[in-house]
């Protein structure tokens, strides 16, 4: 294989003038209307999608004390703290948090939810531990933004679209499809009858009585809310949550 030599194409004088003029035109255009994709934070903010993984908010009303957020956290950032009502609620150490939002995804009651807040400032490391009370209110941040920015793709090119006004940062969680669950025992032969389930049930749905030479364990399906606390606590894992009969 020989080397193929390329020859400089012959351009006419007219073409050269035309292309020079186009280059000068682009230079002027960029000088007055620069085509950059940098967001000028804090004067403007990028508009993030609603499922952005930002600062986590906590709703104490929906928490069922299942500790799932603390168990699932891969960074061990969540610690459960005892409240005066003897229940345990999460605290998040933002020095450790990696914003994976496994806790939000795993939250059974939907008590943890995301926000689009990503710019909380702390003076020192100890401050980064957000107590339960702090998690219930959105954090104080300084908002200097007067417009928000979206990236739009036009003809293989990314452009910024700036819109006046402030973007909302507190996202309303999308409506959850609620399934009504109920607790059942699917392995009665492995049950020790220890009564742990009856102890932990907050709705007094599980009762244990002694009838003759048998211990009888009953789950009151009308009272059971399907929170799953007993399923988690059962030492031999004989309980399971199933969809309530008659539901899809």
């Amino acid at each position, binding site marked *: 294989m020989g080397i193929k030599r390329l020859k400089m194409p012959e351009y006419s004088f007219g073409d050269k003038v035309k292309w020079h003029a186009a280059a000068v035109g682009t230079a002027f255009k960029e000088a007055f209307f620069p085509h950059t994709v940098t967001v000028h934070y804090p004067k403007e903010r990028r508009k993030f999608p609603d499922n952005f993984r930002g600062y986590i908010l906590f709703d104490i009303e929906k928490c069922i004390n299942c500790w799932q957020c603390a168990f699932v956290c891969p960074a061990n950032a969540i610690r459960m703290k005892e409240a005066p009502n003897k229940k345990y609620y999460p605290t998040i150490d933002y020095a450790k948090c990696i914003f994976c939002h496994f806790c939000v995804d795993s939250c059974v009651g939907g008590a943890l939810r995301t926000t689009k807040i990503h710019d909380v400032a702390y003076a020192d490391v100890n401050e980064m531990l957000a107590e339960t009370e702090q998690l219930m209110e959105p954090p104080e941040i300084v908002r200097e933004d007067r417009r928000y920015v979206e990236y739009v793709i036009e003809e293989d090119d990314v452009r910024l679209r700036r819109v006046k006004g402030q973007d909302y940062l507190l996202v309303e969680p999308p409506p959850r499809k609620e399934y009504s669950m109920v607790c059942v*025992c699917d392995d009665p032969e492995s049950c020790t009858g*220890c*009564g742990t389930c009856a102890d932990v049930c907050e709705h007094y749905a599980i009762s244990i009585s002694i009838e003759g030479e048998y211990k009888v364990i009953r*789950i009151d399906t009308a009272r059971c809310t399907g929170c799953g606390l007993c399923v988690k606590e059962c*030492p*031999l*894992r*004989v309980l399971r949550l199933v969809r309530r009969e008659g539901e899809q």
Partner: protein
Amino acid sequence: MRCVAAVSEWRVKLVGRPKDVSCPSVVKTQVIDTGLCCRCMACMAACPAAVRTGVGFDFEERKHVCVDCEICVRVCPRLDYKPLSGIGSYIKAVAGRSKRFKGQDGAMVTEILMSAMEMGIIDRCIFVGRDEDWRTEILHVRDVEQLEVPTLTGTKYTFAAAVPALREAVLNTKVGVGFVGTPCMVSGVRRLQKELAVFRRKVKLVIGLFCTENFYWDELTEFLKERGVDIKKLVKTDITKGKFIATMTDDVVEFPVKELSAIMPSGCRVCTDFSAVESDVSVGSVGSKPGFSTVLVREENAKEVLDFIREHGYADFDEVSLEFVERLCNLKKKREANIK
């Protein structure tokens, strides 16, 4: 593999004990205080209070956390104790030496468990390792590579909490669990299987070890120290031909086994089961040439594993002379006299 029927009302049979006596005190008075307890710890494997509070094998302490479920009474193999003895029923007896693994003798326990894992009968098994002070520690082995830990093989002559570890393994396994233990542990596992369906379904292979007696760690180390054994340097312990041999990195200490009877636990004084009669397969060094292990196949599932090993040529097989095993069985049967 779970039961299909999901119920919201079910019954658990009660043992029928006096109302004013808590179940830990039943075990305490009838098993531990009478010296029958063999430390198989089957009670700890099932106890829901021990799981929740982390209380160990301490029945005084356990009284305070007891939830009165009677499971310890139901699973204790030494409560209404029916001593098993003799060589038991077996399908066949062979001597084997693993080609893949190295152990105290023929490494047949490791070979059987790993072959069962290869066959897909089990997906995890419980091994007993040791730390540098010769305290036993439990290892859940799920892959052959984990066996590279050098302290896993070899006899420790010390009690291990393998049965409590079985609970965790049973709850987490997808296929089944392989278990290896002394005859008393095997009896404990069988009682657990009898009482609780989850153990029945998930414990697929139980290997029993030939056992004359076992020792408490603190007493054994104290005894060995008196004999001039440096525990830190100890690499191997073995009992052959009536002698206890402690091999250290630079020295070997030998003494007759009979001297150890001073520290023999009371639970072993009343134990007559040498060959783990209730196991699926029993393994031990007695009865075969040096470097080989005697394998007594008792159940069909173990026979399948042995056939698999033979098919793949994972082990050498040899003749076994059961006279020695029987002699030790008879020797241990004499301990019946100690049971009051």
